[in-house]
């Protein structure tokens, strides 16, 4: 029939109109500040530093190895190594950063710093409400502002965090077993002096 397309179109919009009052599928708006869409697990915006335990600075996983600073494409990470060392989760003494700044207005969310970090110390965060009125330093986040607990990391990236935690527990157990084996082994007999020529 001529004009059937118009009628079909109008029926569809009428269904949209009527359905928008009772059907979820016909009114998909999420009214932003009051309602928020749940982010996907792989969503990423800016990096953050993970710390274990209750206190941020002692529990920071970062050992200031400078790899993320070197690999960052827009060079937005600035690290200054500290002279004081601190123990990591296995007990070994590691370096720590005195200054760890990320300029998030430059960061391009590529995630390369996360890929290259050998210590699972820096991960991608999902916050995007970052606007600030302070245009001279508001978008330069320092170590304290970047540090977030491991529980937060678990909440964001469940599977990845679970796998990392498992690995760290295993490594800790292995290190403890090695330390125990070392402590329980008998004292090595002194080496025989080399035969005199």
């Amino acid at each position, binding site marked *: 029939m001529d004009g059937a397309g118009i009628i079909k179109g109008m029926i569809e919009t009428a269904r949209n*109109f009527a359905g928008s009052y009772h059907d979820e599928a016909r*009114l998909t708006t999420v009214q932003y500040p009051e309602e928020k869409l749940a982010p996907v697990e792989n969503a990423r915006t800016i990096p953050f530093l993970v710390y274990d335990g209750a206190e941020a600075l002692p529990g920071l996983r970062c050992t200031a190895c400078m790899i993320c600073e070197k690999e960052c494409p827009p060079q937005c990470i600035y690290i200054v190594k500290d002279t004081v060392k601190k123990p990591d989760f296995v007990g070994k003494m590691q370096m720590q950063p005195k200054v760890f700044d990320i300029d998030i207005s430059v960061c391009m969310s590529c995630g390369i710093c996360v890929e290259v970090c050998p210590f699972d110390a820096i991960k991608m965060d999902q916050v995007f409400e970052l606007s600030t009125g302070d245009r001279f330093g508001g978008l330069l986040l320092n170590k304290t502002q970047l540090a977030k607990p491991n529980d937060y990391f678990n909440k964001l990236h469940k599977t990845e965090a679970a796998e990392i935690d498992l690995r760290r527990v295993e490594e800790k157990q292995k290190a403890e077993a090695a330390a125990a084996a070392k402590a329980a082994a008998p004292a090595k007999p002194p080496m025989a002096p080399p035969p005199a020529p």
Partner: protein
Amino acid sequence: MNGLDQIFVGTGHWIAGLFPVYVQPLISAALEIAIMMAVFGGCFALTSVVERKLLGRMQNRYGPNRVGPFGLLQPLADGIKMLTKEDIVPFSADKTVHFLAPLALSVPIWLAFAVLPFGRNMSAIDLDAGILFFFAIGSASELAVFMAGWSSQNKYSLVGAMRAIAQMISYEVPLVLSTVPVLMLAGSLSLNEIVAAQGTYTLGGLARWNVFTPWGLAGLLLFLIAATAESNRSPFDLPEGESEIIAGFLTEYSGFKYALFFLSEYLGLFAITGLAVTLFLGGWHAPFRWLEWVPSWLWFAGKFCALIFLFVWIRATLPRLRLDQLLNFSWRFLVPLSLINILVAVAWYWSGSWKSPVALPVRWVLCAALVALPYHWLAQSLRGTLPPPRKYTYAE
């Protein structure tokens, strides 16, 4: 309930009666003008937000819902925005004509409301040639569109204005021709008489609205299509389509002048909707005899709102027509169909004297066929303007 029906008329008379006799006509005219401006100004504000909300709902989203309850105070925010914007006039623009164009558009459209009968005894002026007045006023607005487009000294404005005028004069022909059957069968050009001719009841209480006849139905559809085109509304909004030509003839207007254009466009829509209600939908008459107790102005308002909803619905559904499609549609489809509609109305009138119990269905079938067959043939002929189906070639 005669009292409620005549409440506005009675109040007007009472207020005019408070003044001395020689100034009473002036007072009652001023009162009518003031009321009409207030009502239709308020209607414009409400329509602008209701349209946006309806469009939103039809597009699976909310409309504006932040300002006021359900977003209904949005026109207040829009008004403040428009009024406080800087009024920019281009340096090389023709200042007088640029200034006069919004006025030349607004004034005739305000005049058009004077002849519409909003209820029993509620038309401001009862002209003997009411419809002619209405169409004459409507045609004056085209000159204003040209003034707006040309005075901006902007090629987009000029092209937009030319397209707008071509569209408006093309669609004025089916607009007027589709009203000719109504005038013929009502026997008068006066809008009050046309409404009165639709006031009798038949078939046990169904009113004799013009839309309940085959030629009336076809006429209403033709009139509504032509009215959509006359008000530059989607799907005929090529002159002001934002994605096509920036804003067409409105490009160089900002602030209050733009608000005046916006207002005039909606007021033109209201005027023509009022005319459609009067000519085809029985004006202020009730559809059934047992519903006559509802006040007449309430019926007018209800039908008016239904037609506005229809306009918004069509806007939400149909994409914009291209200029050549638009003009083809008018000259090759609407004009022949409206001419044939006149013949169908004549056939209906002549067959009205048949005195047999099966007369009504037979008349309906005959007249409907007389309309439907040319509709089909004309639609087939328009299909020839479609481009041929695309042949896709793929790289091997």
